[in-house]
């Protein structure tokens, strides 16, 4: 799957695992970790995205009356499996490249793939931060 990824796009995926998923104590690479790794590409401060995702988790837990918050991450994994949300985002990145007849998958395609999701953690977090998904995609 990665053959068509540019060096920069591969770097984004590696960063999503080794930096973002690790820092958040995640057990798998999710779409939100790709989003964080793409902060420069989409032109939103990394901290803003981290805060938005934290707010999304808090709001979602509050909605079912859960006030417990995740403990600080402990020792993280060295290998991360790719969760469905990240696989879907990568699949959409490939579709975005096909749609514009681009032969290579660039970070821009990855960003389009991540921003395409209409439901789930990423669009909820962006909405909570007042960031328009479509405006971000249009600005790429």
């Amino acid at each position: 799957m990665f053959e068509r990824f540019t060096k920069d796009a591969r770097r984004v995926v590696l960063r999503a695992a080794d930096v973002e998923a690790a820092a958040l104590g995640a057990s798998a690479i999710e779409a939100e970790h790709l989003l964080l790794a793409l902060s420069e590409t989409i032109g939103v401060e990394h901290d803003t995205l981290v805060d938005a995702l934290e707010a999304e988790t808090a709001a979602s837990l509050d909605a079912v009356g859960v006030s417990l918050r995740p403990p600080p991450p402990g020792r993280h994994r060295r290998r991360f499996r790719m969760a469905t949300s990240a696989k879907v985002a990568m699949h959409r990145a490939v579709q975005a490249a096909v749609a514009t007849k681009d032969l290579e998958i660039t970070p821009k395609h990855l960003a389009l793939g991540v921003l395409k999701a209409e439901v789930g953690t990423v669009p909820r977090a962006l909405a909570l931060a007042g960031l328009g998904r479509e405006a971000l995609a249009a600005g790429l």
Partner: protein
Amino acid sequence: MVAGSTTVDHLETAAAIEPSPEDALAAVAALRRLADRVEDDAVERALRDAWTWAQVAEALGVTKQAVHKKHAKRLRED
């Protein structure tokens, strides 16, 4: 005015009891992330307190192989 605020209270109570499908589904995703993090933390502390893998597995209600596969590499001292 009293009647109006009562209606709002009712709506707020209803929302607290039954979140929208979108919020409820997002809550499930957030609870899974929360459970993963609580598990990571609890397993790490149990092993530090000299629990065996077998005890940790039984306490979690999973097989020893499952808990080992999920946490051994992460927690191996080296």
